[in-house]
């Protein structure tokens, strides 16, 4: 089985090339598909020849009006159609032709599934390496669409377009060769028109590709607009501007229609061109043969006296000549779609993983040495090369409950990300129990961290799976943790309780409820360092009070708590670190 690795794909300069590389995964199936297609064409040629012979024999045996022109060979043929064996052969060929596509589809589907599976796993592996730097470039909705809808939509390209592409070259050649049996003019006509087709298609195709890209952008825009406005439907309702928005959406939809029609006008043009050649070739062959039979001229045939067999044979094959090309033309959109998906994929694949990952320190932290303190020394956080906030230095000690304050943009969330080891620091040092350590991607460190983000992260899964996240806990332990996070009553009221399935936009969970579930998860896993980003933003006063009590119990048991918050709750904490003042003190030192 052909495999392909990510570096091959990363080197591609555009989506087209990526598609070609990816197509190599199913090289064997494609070869088989081409062969079957060729067999299919051969059968068609045989069927055509057979029909021509049968009709010819019957017509001439019946036409007693002109016995003088009968040649010996024709007389021998004349009762051909009364032999059952010829009919059996014809029937067998017809059945074979009808059944071959079954096998073809099976192969084609297998090929496309293989390719898409590999693409998916390559992309996912790459995403796992990119970690948080993924967020900077791609929104989660965009990635979800890429991994579900967009890669899926390349089915037609890998299953049908790729094999058909080769067949579109091979089958016409076979037909030309077959036509050479009766004469040279018809094959010449076909051979002359054939290069015109791809030529025109390229000319039209270029414009169509550009238009199709525009159309896809338009579609994405419309899709984003729709989902955005549906998300914000309540804001529009409250502002009484639903009908205006509806009108706006209609306008956007109309604009999409215009751009789609523009694409189609061009796309259909290439189809029409093939249609034109196929129709006109039938007409030309018919008129040419007719005049030949009427002895108006004598050109292009091997024999002087032409039988009906040749005429029938040529006329029936003429449309078959363009059929593979017509099929390819119909699949042209598949290529255009796949190529824009490939462009998208390429943009993702070519993202470089964060530089810090190279120097990942995987020395396991010793288990029996509990976390005593963390010191930050001139730690500069940021995304990639872009720093967020200033370099900070402070120390957190075991049993401390610390509030991290600062205006937006001071780098509170980035600092928490860095401490959690999901974001590499740009510069500076982190000391753990006075030993320098690289936290980024450090598995044994990450297991000691409990982190609750500003937007509570919940999977579309059962509550139980959301809490356990792959580890084993008893229901009692789960409810204990829920109780600590003041979420036990809330869970008991849900249908199915722990087996309640969270769905898109949290199901029936409000922002505050989701936050409490996320908090329960943090308590459940008993971290040594607890990082909380704005945990009380959605909580009312009483709940926030109870919540602070839980935190005090947590830190009393030896944990470290670091909370970022906009609000003024200084009195609740052992210590307040103000990022703003750190900045000023920092500049004073410098």
């Amino acid at each position, binding site marked *: 089985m052909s495999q392909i690795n990510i570096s091959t794909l990363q080197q591609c300069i555009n989506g087209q090339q990526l598609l070609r590389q990816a197509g190599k995964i199913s090289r064997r199936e494609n070869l088989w598909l081409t062969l079957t297609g060729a067999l299919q064409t051969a059968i068609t040629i045989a069927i055509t020849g057979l029909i021509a012979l049968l009709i010819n024999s*019957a017509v001439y045996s019946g036409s007693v009006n002109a016995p003088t022109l009968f040649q010996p060979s024709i007389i021998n043929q004349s009762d051909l159609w009364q032999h059952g064996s010829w009919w059996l052969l014809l029937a067998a060929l017809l059945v074979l032709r009808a059944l071959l*596509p079954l096998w073809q589809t099976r192969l084609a589907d297998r090929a496309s599934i293989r390719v898409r*599976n590999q693409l998916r796993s390559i992309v996912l592996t790459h995403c796992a390496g990119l970690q948080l730097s993924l967020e900077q470039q791609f929104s989660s909705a965009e990635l979800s669409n890429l991994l579900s809808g967009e890669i899926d939509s390349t089915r037609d390209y890998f299953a049908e377009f790729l094999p058909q592409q080769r067949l579109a070259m091979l089958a016409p050649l076979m037909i030309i060769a077959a036509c050479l049996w009766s004469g040279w003019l018809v094959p010449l006509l076909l051979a002359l028109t054939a290069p015109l087709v791809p030529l025109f298609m390229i000319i039209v195709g270029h414009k169509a590709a550009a238009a199709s890209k525009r159309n896809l952008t338009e579609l994405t825009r419309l899709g984003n607009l729709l989902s955005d406005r549906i998300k914000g439907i309540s804001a529009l309702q409250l502002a009484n501007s639903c009908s205006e928005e509806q009108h706006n959406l209609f306008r956007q939809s109309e604009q999409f229609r215009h751009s789609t029609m523009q694409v189609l006008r061009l796309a259909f043009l290439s189809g029409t061109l093939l249609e034109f050649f196929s129709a006109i070739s039938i007409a030309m062959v018919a008129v040419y043969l007719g005049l030949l039979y009427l*002895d108006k001229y004598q050109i292009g045939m091997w024999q002087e006296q*032409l039988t009906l067999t040749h005429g029938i044979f040529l006329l029936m094959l003429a449309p078959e000549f363009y059929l593979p090309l017509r099929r390819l033309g119909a699949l042209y959109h598949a290529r255009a779609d796949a190529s824009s998906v490939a462009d998208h994929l390429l943009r993702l694949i070519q993202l470089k993983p964060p530089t810090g990952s190279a120097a990942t320190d995987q020395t396991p932290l010793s288990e029996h040495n509990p976390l005593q303190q963390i010191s930050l020394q001139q730690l500069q956080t940021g995304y990639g090369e872009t720093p967020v906030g200033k370099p900070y230095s402070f120390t957190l000690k075991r049993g401390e409950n610390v509030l991290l304050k600062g205006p937006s943009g001071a780098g509170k969330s980035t600092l928490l990300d860095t401490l959690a080891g999901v974001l590499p620091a740009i510069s500076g040092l982190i000391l753990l129990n006075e030993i320098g350590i690289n936290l980024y991607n450090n598995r044994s460190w990450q297991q000691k961290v409990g982190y609750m983000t500003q937007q509570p992260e919940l999977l579309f899964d059962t509550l139980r799976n959301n809490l356990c996240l792959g580890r084993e806990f008893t229901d009692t332990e789960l409810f204990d943790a829920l109780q600590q996070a003041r979420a036990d009553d809330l869970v008991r009221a849900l249908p199915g309780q722990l087996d309640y399935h969270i769905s898109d936009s949290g199901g029936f969970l409000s922002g505050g409820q989701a936050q409490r579930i996320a908090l329960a998860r943090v308590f459940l896993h008993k971290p040594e360092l607890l990082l909380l980003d704005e945990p009380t933003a959605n909580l009312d006063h009483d709940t926030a009070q109870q919540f602070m009590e839980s935190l005090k119990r947590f830190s009393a048991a030896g944990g470290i708590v670091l909370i970022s918050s906009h609000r003024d709750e200084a009195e609740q904490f052992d210590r307040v670190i103000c990022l703003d003042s750190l900045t000023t003190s920092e500049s004073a030192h410098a």
Partner: protein
Amino acid sequence: MPELVKRYFQLLWQQRGMATLGLLLATITALSGIALLAVSGWFISATALAGLSLASAHGFNYFAPGAIVRGLSIARTFGRYGERLATHEATFRVISHLRSDMFGTLTRHNWQEQPLNSHEASSRLLDDIRHAESLYLSALVPGLVMLLSALLYLATVTLFLPQLALWLLLPLLTSVVLLPALYLRRVLQPQNTLHQQRSQQWSDAHSLFSNLRTLILFDRLTPQSDKLCHSAAIADQTEQRASNARQSVHALNQLVQASMLLLVLWQGLEGLATGQLEGALVFMLLLLTLGLQEVLTTGSSALAAFALGYQALQRIGQLSPAEPQPDQRRFIDPASPQTMITVENLSYRYPTRQEATIAALNTELTETNWYWLTTPSGQGKTTLMQLLAGQLQSQQGRITFSGIEANQIGLMPQQISLLQGSLRFNLCLHQPYSDAVLWETLKMVELDHWASGLPEQLDSWLGKGAHLPSGGEVKRLGLARLILQDRKVLLLDEPTAGIDTERSQRILQRLRQHWSGHIIIISSHDTALMTTPDIRLVL
């Protein structure tokens, strides 16, 4: 018939000019394609036979058939182009209307009780609605063309060789009626399963990418990726099953058509031998059959396409109840200068909960003042606000407003949704306000500095990737929206969450002046923000 399907056909009827043109061109194209083959077949066999004797060859009029053949080939080419353009144009026009209609229906419904699944809703409005286009494009047009062509074919065959027509009746009926029905049965079910599995795949993908931090920390990135690959593989299998089913019906169709071909050939040759049929007509009938087969092949999926489109419309229709809930609130005496709110015996229970969130609440708000709801969360503050605003409808009791109309109640919800668009759009939400008014409002909520710091000020784009305001800034944007809307009764749900106390005090001070003479109901646990004349409401 579902409401939406009816609506679809209404819209199609509105576009009947274009739709009929498409159908007409499709028929012309199909018929001229068949005729082109048949006439060419007749022409060469006739000339071949005529060519046998010098005399008949000389007298043969080849101009007319030649011209007909050329004409038909041109008709087929341009007919096809026109047909495609016309049918697509008609379809897209219908879809455009349908999409905005559907959004309109969504907006007439309240989504507080049963939150709208926004991914699903938007994917239905975008993708499912495109399945709906198959109703006309891949069902009605090819279906009708197939029926018409088959009838004409049968008539032509009867004209030349009646007993052949009898023979062909069975395979033709199979091809036109039986096989499309079989196709429908075999393909519809896997297609539906596929739809569900693909949306499962989407939510697995979304779970993965919107929970990056948690998954990394718990080392669950790989299991979650595997889960996604697994659900994708399952969906792929279903896709393959659907494609196999499609192909097997297609193969059956090919077999039926092969039998037709054999029948025509055999009966034609028999007819020739018995002298019932002229020599030139055998090949003509054969090509006529071949031409028809192309039409039959495209038509065999028509019924299934119809069903798919029908189901897609049904799915979209299920998004929202056909009728919005009736407004339970009462508005009396709107002209009265005195604004009053009376709540009598009001009860509300969420459909998923056992207990009522608000039970038999009685209260009267007679004077214009600030009313504070300060009870702990979970006791119905937000629910009461939504009941007052008409976003929820009570099961019992009554809310009566006097001195105002329904559109004079404004609510600032707890979650302010930022829409994709400029700051100006997010403030105005399609209502016209002058720049001066906008700046004044921004100043009131202390966003003027922030806004003037944006690169294009009021026209700066807000949202992910551009300028994402912080939580507190979003809250203040929500307040600014409400200030602009100029309502008489104002409901503020946690307006100061995420804003520090000093700033909250300053902003509320300004609002007290701006909204003097209004009834304001505010829910907050920041009791420090209350002032002496304010009234505390107890739930």
